[in-house]
């Protein structure tokens, strides 16, 4: 498994007002990406700011992903905000589909 994108990944975790659950999801995502060995910078935000943020990957719960489609190349719905192993699996599958991970 090799990471083929050059620059670090810009990841944004999003929730309604960008304070509570997106911050918890940020910590989970940082752990998952570090364990996958993928260089990334993770930030968190609310729905409104997420639109102009120019992230590579957006993580949010399914309630919000429909509004976020198109704001980043990859928009991934997350159900369990603490599940590092599950997020690792989903992310590596989605990254492979994008051709970022070979």
């Amino acid at each position, binding site marked *: 498994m090799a990471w083929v994108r050059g620059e670090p990944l810009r990841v944004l975790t999003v929730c*309604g*007002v960008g304070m*509570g*659950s997106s911050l*918890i999801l940020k910590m989970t995502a940082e752990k998952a990406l570090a364990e996958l060995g993928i260089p990334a910078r993770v930030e968190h935000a609310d729905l409104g700011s997420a639109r102009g943020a120019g992230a590579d990957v957006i993580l949010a719960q399914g309630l919000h992903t429909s*509004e976020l489609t198109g704001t980043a190349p990859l928009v991934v719905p997350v159900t369990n*905000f*603490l*599940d590092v192993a599950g997020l690792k699996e989903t992310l590596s599958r989605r990254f492979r589909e994008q051709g970022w991970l070979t």
Partner: protein
Amino acid sequence: MEFLRQLLTWIANNLFNQVAILIGLIVLVGTAIQRKRFEEVFAAAIRATLGVLILFIGIDVFVGGLLSFQTIVGSAFNLMPPKATKTLADFLGTHGGSIALIITIGFLIHVILVRLLPFLRYVYLTGHLMFWISVIVAAALIESFPRMGPTALVLWGSVIVAVYWSLQPLYIARAMRKVIGSDEWGYGHTSSAACYLAATLGGAVGSKDKHDTEKLKLPQRLAFFKDVNVSTAVIIGVIMLLAAAFADKTLLAEQAKKFSATVDPWVWAVLVGLRFAAGIAILLFGVRMFLAEIVPAFKGISDKLIPGSRPALDVPTVFPFAPTAVMVGFLASTVTFLILMLVFGAAGWFTLVPPMIMLFFPGGGAGVFGNAFGGWRGAMLGGVINGLFLAIGQATVWGMLSNTAPELATLGDPDWYILVWLIKLVTAPFAGP
């Protein structure tokens, strides 16, 4: 000795009384003990300090919109706007340092309680509510004991918030397990009273199997309400326009003129809604900025001291389990609140301000809990309960906090009001001038 006294006074006035600097220092220590690199520690402290300053600017804009709203809507009902001798910004200016210490010491007491009493199980990690609950508890204490010194305030405040953070996730844990189907995390949100009632009463009005919200289809058009900035601007703006039609026209013109000499009063009414929403957005941006530094430090401390403890998390962590119930609860809350707004206004009781964020998040949460026990009927009941809490809470707590930070009444969740009511009730026999 004299020098020492002067030094301590200087530290008290310039570090402990300046909430922005104190929060910066707390973050500095919090990140330093995680052995981060110097430049990271420094940047984190600066970001947290800026966050507090931005919060203050947001409060100014928000309170400006709030006052205009209360004046015009009040006038439409022939009511005087609710009275306030102090504002939230004044209160954070005078007592902000104590509040920062209440969050920090309260969290440490909470962690020690959970470490010593394993049945408590959950570590509260919903940062913005740790901030707001500390503010509201401090305000309620100062209302009862205006001359309480900072040491007593910090001590009593820390103990009260620590007990709340320890017990709240625990009493709702049984319902929470049914909602998320596991015990992986707890519910740490100040809507717990509405959620608990929705879960307890939900089963009496419907059944999850027969009336599951997730079998319903709601119109897609409602989706834009999920963006709380948009829904706040729209609802406050529309009510302003309606109220402007019934308000005293001289008053309306005067208020609009204060904002700009040339603006049309109707356009001003719309602008009030937009400024109100913008103020809340700035305020939340500031809170988000300092929380982003504090919460990971808190999580680091609790992971180290209580390995294997479960976190109690913010309300949106239950939303994925029933997204439609969120919308049902939110809509039921909003309709209930708007009806009560008319009733309270017509009866001459109080000019209520619709708090869209509190109608969405606690309303949505109560919807999810209600649905888990009583399907869409339970979800709707949960929303109605939340709407009742928010209307009655705002109308009663505004007056109870009018000498400290009355605006808190318009930003509150059900548990905030219950805490203020309880503190008022318990301290009533001892309260001093």
